[in-house]
């Protein structure tokens, strides 16, 4: 079962698509730079939302702050997915078994689950909060988890090269 799953990634690494990425002098470095720039944008937007959830930036209504930051976060995440797919394809067979890469994917999944829980459990209440009012505990937990998870994702991304 695991071997069969791994065969898919080996096939991806041996595909024309991945071969073209490796052969190009500029594509891999461009994807690498893009991945970092999108990470920077994503982290900025996420930090604004998380600091807001933790009770900071309280002069602005949370609904306003979060709605604005969210668009940038989603766009940057899409850019990271695209550039990440290019980087992954070039070395898919090796990366799929890299423990830090696996941890990174697990953390990304956890980050997405955290967003879903926030949407289900905290968002409705939060969007009604007036500027300066205290944050509900569940919002604070979601913000703290988000910060920890996404910093962990970034650290794993850099650490992949060393394992």
């Amino acid at each position: 079962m695991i071997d069969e799953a791994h065969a898919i990634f080996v096939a991806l690494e041996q595909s024309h698509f991945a071969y073209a990425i490796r052969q190009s002098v500029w594509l891999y470095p461009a994807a690498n730079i893009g991945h970092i720039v999108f990470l920077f944008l994503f982290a900025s937007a996420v930090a604004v939302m998380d600091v807001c959830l933790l009770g900071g930036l309280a002069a602005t209504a949370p609904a306003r702050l979060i709605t604005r930051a969210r668009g940038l976060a989603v766009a940057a995440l899409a850019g990271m997915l695209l550039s990440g797919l290019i980087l992954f394809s070039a070395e898919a067979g090796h990366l799929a078994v890299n423990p830090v890469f696996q941890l990174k994917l697990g953390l990304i999944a956890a980050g997405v689950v955290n967003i879903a829980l926030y949407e289900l459990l905290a968002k409705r209440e939060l969007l009604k909060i007036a500027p300066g009012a205290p944050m509900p505990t569940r919002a604070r937990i979601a913000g703290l988890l988000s910060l920890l998870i996404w910093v962990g994702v970034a650290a794993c991304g850099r650490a992949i090269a060393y394992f």
Partner: protein
Amino acid sequence: MLRIVVVLAGLTSLVGAAVAHHGWGSYDAGKPVTVAGAILTSKFENPHATITVRGNDKVWTVTLAPTSRMVSRGATEKVVAVGRDISAYGYPSTVDRDEMRAERITVDGKTYEMR
């Protein structure tokens, strides 16, 4: 709240599974080696160009630099083509005994820095 606990528990088990896999993949700078011989295969690719070289003792996989850096240093695809004689100075991998990472290579009397 319960769901958050479940997420944390899941994260903890992921970390455990990952750590159990294997350790650092690095190069031993304390035991530099020089591999000299003919180039058997050559992949001029990103993220690193790699060649295999028939050394005195065995066939080594020699990891070189990203292709853009190779080109800017003059170590083009033709310089590391199959059949050419090369001398590579670098550090052996602590994970794969047949792999080394080149600090510099010499082809036809000309030395190219890889770092």
